[in-house]
């Protein structure tokens, strides 16, 4: 007997997962150290999509940097744009008009819904529920059509501008949006009936990836991933921007700190977002959509086409950039994934001296090594899904 034990020594196995793996949501690579089916250690490797956006941003003016932010978190490009313009506005010290603020809130919440839908679709697909994927994409297409109606693009929108938004929304858009807000709440139960009480879903999400509130804050988690652990941290409430202080909404939190609670949180957020949309539609004030601060914002297109002065003014703003006060500023906004922060160091020229992006996915990806340990290999997929990462934002 002794002899057999000597020959049959056991040791941990290293398994490589990714970067090309259908369930890693992009190009994440994990090296799993497993003992049988149990995970001993996980080492995430990121950087396969590092495009140098921070460096590129330093060579572009504040206006030109905006399209780069679409490509960060491409699932909710609109929220990223808003994060960027809110930060730049704070740096410039300008305030957009009311109507623009409400429109931004509308598109921000729409993008939150579309992000959570895509998250649910892929998360469910990874765990094995194909139908949810098709259902979610049906509604997502609807939202993308709405985006197309206001700015002509589906994914990389670049609609908000420093000092307001690019153009006013049409009545047609508002009508379709109203129809959407009426219809969408009836669609949420459709997804829920599919998975809420599904035995497989429960088995694979309840009690998986548990992280306590203190630990979650310590790891720097934000957004629904943190709120699933029962922490009331939502930047829309803490430091309101745009029109969030003028609408009512609740911040759902979880109690069990696991994957299932985070899923429930996001489902509730869908409802709350819809609620915000409805209020914005009701309260949408008339007026201009671009701040009238000639030193920092571009003149309206009609004027540029008609008279020389505005044309020259726009030319200078575009080529040289505005003259910005010197200083440094960090502004965070609540994007669907968590806290997106922009940190600018300005040296007085039209280009940021340093542009730093605090991406929620980057922090969330690092927590994987903590979440997966002790679970089975199959739960890695559930854990990757629950933290809701996008690698474009993680690697920048």
């Amino acid at each position, binding site marked *: 007997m002794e002899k057999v034990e000597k020959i049959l020594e056991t040791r941990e196995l290293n398994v490589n997962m990714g970067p090309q793996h259908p369930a890693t949501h992009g190009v994440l690579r994990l090296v799993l150290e497993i003992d049988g089916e149990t995970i001993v250690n996980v080492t995430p490797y990121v950087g396969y999509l590092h495009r140098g956006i921070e460096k590129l941003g330093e*060579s572009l003016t504040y206006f030109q940097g905006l399209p780069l932010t679409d490509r960060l978190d491409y699932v909710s490009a609109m929220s990223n744009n808003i994060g960027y313009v809110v930060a730049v506005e704070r740096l410039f010290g300008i305030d957009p008009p009311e109507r623009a603020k409400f429109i931004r809130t509308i598109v921000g919440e729409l993008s939150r819904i579309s992000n959570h839908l895509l998250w649910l679709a892929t998360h469910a697909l990874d765990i094995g529920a194909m139908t949810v994927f098709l259902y979610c994409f049906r509604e997502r297409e609807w939202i993308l059509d709405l985006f197309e109606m206001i700015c002509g693009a589906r994914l990389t929108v670049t609609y908000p501008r420093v000092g307001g938004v690019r153009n006013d929304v049409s009545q047609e858009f508002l009508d379709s949006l109203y129809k959407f807000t009426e219809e969408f709440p009836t669609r949420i139960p459709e997804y829920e009936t599919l998975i809420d009480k599904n035995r497989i879903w429960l088995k694979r999400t309840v009690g998986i990836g548990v992280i306590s509130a203190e*630990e979650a804050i310590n790891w*720097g988690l934000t957004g629904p991933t943190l709120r699933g652990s029962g922490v009331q941290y939502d930047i829309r409430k803490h430091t309101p921007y745009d029109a969030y202080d003028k609408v009512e909404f609740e911040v759902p*939190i979880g*109690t069990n700190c696991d994957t299932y609670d985070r899923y429930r*949180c996001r489902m509730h957020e869908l409802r709350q977002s819809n609620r915000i949309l409805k209020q914005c539609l009701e309260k949408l004030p008339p007026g201009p959509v671009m701040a009238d601060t000639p030193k920092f914002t571009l003149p309206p297109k009609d004027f540029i086409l008609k008279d020389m002065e505005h044309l020259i003014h726009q030319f200078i703003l575009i080529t040289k950039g505005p003259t910005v006060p010197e200083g440094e500023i960090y502004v965070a906004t609540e994007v669907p994934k968590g*806290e997106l922060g922009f940190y600018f160091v300005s*040296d007085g020229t039209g280009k940021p001296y340093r542009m*730093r992006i605090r991406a929620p996915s980057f922090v969330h990806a*690092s927590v994987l090594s903590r979440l997966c340990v002790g679970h089975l290999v199959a739960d890695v997929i559930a854990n990757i899904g629950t933290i809701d990462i996008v690698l474009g934002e993680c690697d920048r």
Partner: protein
Amino acid sequence: MIVEVNMKFPYMKMDPLAIAERIKEKFPLEVVDVVSFRDQVSVIIKKEKIVEICRFLHDDPVLDFDHLRDLCGVDYLGKKEPRFEVIYHLYSVRHRHMIRLNAQVSESDPKIDSVTSLWAGVNWHERECFDMFGIKFKGHPDLRRILLPEDWEGYPLRKDYPLKGPEKEWSGFAEVLEKAKKYREFDWEG
């Protein structure tokens, strides 16, 4: 399972300048300058006691900075002396106040103590800072490059690094190009 409550627990928000005063009181020799811009306050400090200062901010019940929002580096080549700054954005989820610490790091000795013992989430931020600026974090458990490949040369976010990269291609990519050239003769040509 979901409890929906309005955010109405009591909190004590502190003025950032008052926080800066407290730091100055506690560490008078460390604070170089306090700069205020658009309601945000940066406390410029020397790097030697960074862990002590952070521990004080983290543990003090009135300040209670439990959330490290961000850590990054800035390269002030030719603008300021010392050349680098490591920026800490601290936030208190409980009290909802924020402060920024700028720790000065010189070019000749690009090292600073790691604060991973206080915030676990800072681990990757420090690795990224090392990757991009070449600032070493003493006491970091696993200081490797994170975004770029292990054998990459140079530190991209330094101001003297060209945007389009150096002349010499990274060896890994050069290998791929080589391989592609070699295999081209096997491609179907129709």
